């Protein structure tokens, strides 16, 4: 009787705990296999249309500037501004009769401020008005400027491409970077007055080996009938505080290694890729068709950079967010598609606000806010200290992260780095081994081997001398004996 009571009470205790939400993340090992990790970010809030007492058609882009959230509605053709308390404060166009702003299917949004002659900052909203082939620059009280089709060859003549700006970013000098549909030459760079300056960051054209093989046997007419081999298009962009343009695009060669780029002012890709894998979202995935799970590479749709060189990319296919540090090391992965609160069905935009991440979902028209867990905050802190060059402090933070996640390679690497600098080569070797950092392991091993050699060098020299001496002695003795024997025989 006692036992049954105990049993049922135990059952009761078991079921009273709430297992509703499993908080588990994952990470990639050195070999590209999935390993368990702790959840780096936690969903804290979702802003939904009913909360705001406003109706949305389809939100296509989001930008957060000075704690204000700017939302672009591509169906109702308006911009909605929320304040820091997530309440609607303004909409553009302000009244429906004011048709200067009258947009048509706008897709891209960017907000920045300029300092005018009086020394006060004025906030400007840039909108890529896709349907009306123009870019709008909107001020507090209404439309400020309108930039129509740029004066470029491909937009003129018989085979003119329709100018359809999709995404826009503006750097600190006021230059506009515009991604437009059907423009395969790269990102359009427009001067602050709207004149076309040049293309930056052209993607490469990749023709597969099989296609090349078949092309060998084709006549010129056949080849002309083929589909054009076009470079992949850029999908989205962001600008960091040093005016580097971060872009995401589809892969051009199937490997996915070129999906994320960091373009300098010359338009060259300068992204550092020193992690175990180049930044490209998911590393292991199924590549064959399946009804149950999405297959293939991540399809990255947005990128956001913070002031410490960390960037997060948003994968719409699986609804995941991947964060990398300025060296291209994968820091953590979180998020997922689904119907629950905190998951996405069609995530289209992501942005940093401090350390928090805001994700816009265009199907449900909601904004999900994620805040770092203790582990995530530690990783952020460590990555930021690394970026600033304060390696001692960052190593302390990395060490803390190991308490939450034993498999965290980056932490071992950081500890090994500190050991190496301090001259503890043996410990450095151990930590680099745990981190699978072969280059640094090799360096540490070199120093360690030199130490060992120095330590044993006298003994080795003495041993060599002894060996040579013994050999010499024995051969001389043999010779002597031989000569004596031959002498005796004579």
């Amino acid at each position, binding site marked *: 009787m006692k036992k049954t009571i105990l049993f049922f009470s135990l059952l009761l205790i078991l079921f009273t705990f709430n297992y509703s939400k499993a908080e588990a993340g994952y990470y990639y090992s050195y*070999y590209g*296999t999935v390993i368990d990790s702790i959840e780096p970010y936690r969903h804290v809030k979702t802003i939904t249309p009913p909360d705001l007492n406003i109706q949305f058609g389809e939100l296509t882009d989001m930008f957060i500037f000075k704690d204000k959230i700017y939302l672009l509605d591509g169906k109702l053709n308006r911009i909605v501004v929320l304040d820091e308390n997530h309440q609607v404060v303004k909409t553009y166009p302000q009244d429906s009769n004011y048709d200067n702003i009258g947009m048509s299917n706008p897709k891209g949004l960017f907000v920045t401020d300029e300092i005018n002659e009086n020394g006060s900052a004025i906030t400007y909203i840039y909108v890529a008005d896709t349907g009306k082939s123009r870019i709008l620059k909107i001020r507090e009280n209404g439309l400020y400027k309108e930039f129509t089709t740029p004066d470029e060859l491909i937009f003129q003549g018989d085979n003119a491409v329709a100018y359809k700006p999709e995404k826009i970013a503006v750097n600190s000098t006021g230059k506009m970077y515009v991604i437009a549909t059907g423009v395969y030459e790269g990102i359009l760079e427009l001067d602050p007055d709207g004149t076309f300056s040049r293309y930056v960051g052209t993607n490469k054209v990749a023709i597969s080996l099989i296609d090349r093989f078949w092309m060998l046997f084709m006549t010129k007419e056949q080849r002309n009938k083929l589909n054009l081999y076009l470079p992949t298009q850029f999908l989205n962009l962001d600008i960091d505080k040093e005016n580097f343009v971060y872009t995401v695009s589809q892969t051009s060669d199937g490997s996915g290694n070129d999906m994320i780029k960091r373009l300098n002012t010359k338009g060259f890709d300068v992204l550092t890729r020193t992690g175990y894998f180049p930044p490209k979202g998911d590393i292991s995935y199924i590549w064959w068709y399946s009804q149950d799970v999405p297959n293939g590479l991540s399809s990255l749709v947005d990128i956001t950079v913070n002031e410490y060189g960390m960037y997060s990319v948003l994968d719409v296919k699986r609804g995941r967010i991947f964060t990398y540090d300025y060296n291209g090391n994968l820091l953590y992965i979180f998020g997922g598609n689904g119907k629950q609160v905190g998951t996405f069905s069609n995530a289209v935009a992501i942005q940093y606000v401090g350390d928090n991440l805001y994700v816009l979902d265009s199907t449900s028209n909601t904004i999900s806010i994620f805040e770092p867990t203790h582990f995530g905050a530690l990783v952020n802190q460590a990555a930021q200290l690394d970026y600033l060059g304060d390696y001692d402090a960052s190593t302390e933070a990395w060490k803390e992260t190991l308490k939450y996640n034993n498999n965290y390679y980056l932490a071992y690497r950081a500890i090994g780095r500190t050991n190496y600098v301090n001259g503890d080569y043996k410990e450095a070797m151990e930590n680099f*081994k745990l981190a699978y950092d*072969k*280059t640094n392991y*090799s*360096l540490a*091993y070199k120093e360690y*081997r030199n130490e060992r050699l120095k330590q044993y060098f006298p003994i080795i020299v003495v041993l060599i001398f002894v060996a040579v001496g013994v050999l010499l002695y024995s051969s001389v003795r043999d010779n002597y004996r031989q000569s004596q024997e031959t002498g005796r025989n004579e």
Partner: protein
Amino acid sequence: MKSKAFFQMLYQDVIKFPTYLISHPFKGYEDFKFGKKGKFYVALIFLILMSLVQIIKFTSTGFILNPNNPKDLNSIKIASFVIVPIVLFSIANWNVTTLFDGKGKMKEIFMMVCYSLFPYIIASIIVVIGSNFLTLEEAMLLDLVNYIGILGVVYLMFFGMINIHEYSPLKVIITTILTIVAIGVILFIALLIFTLVKQIYTFIYALLRELAKRY
């Protein structure tokens, strides 16, 4: 005393004669074929050693130079990657050379290929040991050793084929190319048979099920 003689014989057969083959390929292979110096058990030892060395290479190469995940170790797979190509080559080469007036028997071809592995086995042992004591910059040395081993294999096989089949060098090259083609044909036929057998199996299985359901 008996064991001493045994070890002496082993030393003669496994180490001394293969080294002699490297330094005197023509005379060595003459002894190999007509002087009964080439022994089948030695060939098998080399084959097993080669498989073992490949497995050890997978697990025990130094950390810096080892790209393998220890969890992926499959010793049967590694061993079959050594044994199957050698057996295939022996069969294919015999097939081709009998048509081209080759004098070698299949057993001789197989033994010759196994004996040719000797330099690569030695090189692999050096690479495995060396990789545990060298840094990343010095790893080029090991690459060099590895290439020398491969070159040794090619060298021994080339002269082996000249002597065993009593061929001219040009004929050896031609028959080697044809051997590779023959390997392709053999693999194709093997695949065909495999799929056919599988289809027959599924057919009989379906038939039996049908019968079982009806009666």
